[in-house]
């Protein structure tokens, strides 16, 4: 039997001449589109404490934002300084009520972000952080609901998180309108 000790010299030489080649097209865009943005490390499960954390963030952000907005009168800041919009909720698979909430939140978020340039940077950062936390919670809830459509707990969580986001945006909207 031909074993690893009896490799034909010509074949061995051909193996030595093998070299790695780049793929003919760039595969990165296709890979990047498929990466799980939540660090890609954990399965798609809702961490229910996230709901509590998100609630706390809202409360802190709202109170901190209120205090800061009332305390400071700041010059307008260019809106380009605002963090990337988080108004990209996927609504295709939402129930009609949730889809309506998501659309309302998206519309209000666009309006709020246009006014965030007038807000104190610290308050703005706090608001952005809250929105990111809420969007993350919404995305997790949507994935969970897609995975098990009959899961009432996931459905309620999604609805309540959408409401929390809408409430936060309303609060911020009122505060920014008072300031402008």
């Amino acid at each position, binding site marked *: 039997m031909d074993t*690893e000790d009896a*490799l034909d010299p010509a*074949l061995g030489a051909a193996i030595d001449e093998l*070299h790695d080649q*780049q*793929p003919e097209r760039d595969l990165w865009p296709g890979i990047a589109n498929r990466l799980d*943005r939540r660090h890609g490390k954990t399965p798609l499960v809702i961490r229910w404490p996230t709901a509590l954390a998100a609630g706390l963030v809202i409360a802190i952000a709202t109170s901190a934002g209120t205090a800061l907005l009332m305390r400071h009168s700041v010059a307008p800041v260019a809106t380009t300084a605002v963090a990337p919009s988080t108004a990209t909720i996927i609504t295709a698979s939402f129930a009609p009520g949730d889809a309506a909430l998501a659309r309302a939140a998206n519309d209000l978020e666009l309006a709020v972000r246009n006014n965030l340039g007038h807000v104190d940077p610290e308050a703005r950062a706090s608001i952005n952080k809250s929105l990111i936390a809420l969007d993350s919670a919404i995305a997790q809830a949507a994935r969970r609901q897609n995975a098990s459509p009959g899961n009432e707990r996931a459905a309620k969580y999604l609805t309540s998180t959408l409401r929390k986001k809408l409430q936060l945006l309303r609060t911020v909207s009122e505060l920014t309108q008072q300031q402008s």
Partner: protein
Amino acid sequence: MTLPAIRRDNAAVDIESLDAKRAAAGDEAAFERLYRRHVSRIHSLVRRMAGPDAADDITQDIFVRAWAKLATFRGDSAFGTWLHRLGVNVVLSRRRSEKTERAWILEDEQALLAAPSRLTAHPAARMDLDAAIARLPEGARKVFVLHDVEGWTHEEIAEQMGLVPGTSKSQLSRARAALRRMLDGH
């Protein structure tokens, strides 16, 4: 190897290790750097093991899987070694889901025996090794690539593919014989 070269190699490993940690924490730019550094190696491995048609798709699967499993990379080995092993697992698991390795290895026997006569009739008698490897039946091709190109032992191949080492050895022997004939044009 000269001292500066060693330093460069160590520096490259350090940077790679740092990028792996960053990627594990969700840094996509760091993961793209790892992709750029390793894509030719992984793509070539996949192309040889699974054939050129599926190479792009499987390579993408490997990097997506790597991103998802980065938390399990503890730095005990080089990132490239870890990624390479993951790549082999992905290639083998695609076929495994359809049929057991053992079942299709046995099916390859007939195809492997028939390969030389088909190749003798081929007009382009002499060919490069990559093209010749692509003409091997799937089971023999994987054993040959893992053993003779990637340096795995028969025991490692057998364990990974669910075979006994003797089957791996016989597949390698026949693959080498077929390749010699293809390369010689006989």
